[in-house]
């Protein structure tokens, strides 16, 4: 028997749009929540990226072809000038390299003398940027090596002059590099001039970095070079990161406003070096244990 109060449906068209809307909105919100909080979905993402990566390669094709065509029509004159410039650069670099080798040997000897553990030499891998950021919110690039080249999240990315960023996601053939200028991306650094330790943060929507929480009275000047301190165990020690560009010391605020510019061509080059991951540092001792021990025998603490 047909219920006469219900409108009769001639065609079965499945659930109504409102029902579908609620279902898919709920599904999206579930995915959003899981992805933002727990990162469980990385395997799904890399599986789907196999479908999407041909589309991405196709999209970058026109610019690559244009570049190749440009390379083909390089004139002889420009090649000669370039060769001259490279020769000069080579001679200058060779002199510096000799100096560097001497310093390396000296450094090694000094370290042996002081019985310090030798810093492991890290190897590097060359990669090429497949495409740059395509979302206005992000400072990220995607490079053409992934799990196939044994990349791991957390590896450091640099160019010939300094730190560029960090590998944050690894797909089968691609990986995503977060640049140091990404909003709230932090790198522990030291001021080269006086060894002052601090942390430099990305500023987000501009290609700048900033030093936060530096007291107004801190000893920092325009043009100071910031190099990695190596304290976090992620970045190797002594690689240039940024140069101090502008300092605003306003006594009304507890902290100075310091803007820095990245040393490396963060937004320039096409080739990047990825450092192999550093040896693991020992775990930080648990604070509660230490505190409990100190309470038990306060004398021994005083002796220290």
């Amino acid at each position: 028997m047909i219920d006469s109060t219900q409108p009769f449906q001639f065609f079965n068209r499945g659930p109504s749009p409102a029902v579908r809307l609620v279902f898919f909105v709920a599904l999206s919100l579930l995915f959003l929540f899981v992805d933002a909080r727990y990162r469980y979905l990385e395997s799904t993402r890399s599986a789907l990226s196999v479908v999407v990566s041909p589309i991405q390669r196709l999209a970058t094709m026109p610019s690559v072809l244009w570049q190749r065509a440009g390379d083909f029509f390089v004139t002889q004159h420009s090649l000669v000038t370039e060769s001259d410039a490279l020769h000069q650069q080579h001679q200058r670099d060779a002199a510096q390299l000799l100096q560097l080798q001497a310093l390396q040997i000296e450094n090694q000897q000094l370290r042996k003398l002081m019985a310090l553990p030798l810093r492991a030499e890290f190897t590097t891998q060359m990669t090429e940027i497949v495409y740059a950021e395509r979302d206005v919110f992000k400072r990220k690039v995607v490079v053409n090596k992934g799990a196939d080249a044994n990349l791991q999240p957390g590896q450091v990315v640099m160019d010939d002059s300094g730190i560029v960023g960090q590998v944050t996601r690894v797909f089968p053939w691609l990986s995503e590099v977060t640049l140091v200028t990404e909003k709230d991306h932090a790198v522990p650094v030291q001021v080269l001039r006086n060894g002052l330790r601090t942390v430099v943060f990305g500023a987000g929507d501009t290609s700048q970095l900033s030093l936060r929480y530096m007291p107004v009275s801190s000893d920092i000047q325009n043009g100071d070079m910031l190099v990695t301190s190596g304290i976090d165990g992620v970045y190797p020690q002594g690689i240039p990161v940024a140069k101090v560009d502008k300092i605003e010391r306003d006594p009304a605020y507890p902290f100075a406003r310091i803007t820095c510019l990245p040393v490396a061509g963060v937004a320039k080059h096409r080739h990047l070096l990825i450092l192999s991951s550093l040896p693991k540092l020992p775990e930080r001792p648990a604070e509660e244990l230490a505190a409990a021990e100190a309470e038990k025998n306060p004398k021994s603490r005083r002796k220290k």
Partner: protein
Amino acid sequence: MPYPTLANPEIQRPVSTILIMFSVLLALILNGLPWEGIWLMLRPDFVAVVMLYWCTHKPLRVGIGMSWAVGMLADVADASLFGQHALAYTLLAFGGVVLHRRLQMFDLRQQTTQVLGIFALTYAVYALVHWQVNGYVVWPYFFGCLTSTLLWAPMSVMFQAIRQMRVDRE
């Protein structure tokens, strides 16, 4: 002369699944071109425009479910959070499916004003999710909403022409 076929919805031109698939794929590629700086801000969301076109013209073939699936692919392509595009495109498709009768009665100029609202909602949802997760919004991002709306009329004319060519051939 106002656009004739849209004003009388009984002449619905047929459309092949291949055309729908190809247009979505092309839109994904266009979104993936290396846009930079000001052009990235002004980039219309091609996928959103194409999905809205099919949702309003063939609501029984392309609906909320397919928009959601395309949104997931867009999330992978953009390396954004899973579900961010999917959520925005779900709402877009819902707007398209619910308003499709009204849009078919209108001419292109009237459609454009209606479509602006749907795109604004889509962009606002995307930015809202980003704001919730990351805590800040880049306001120039909303320029894309206006360029997407401007793209609506040429895109409609182009798709109608392609479908008309098919009818003429048969």
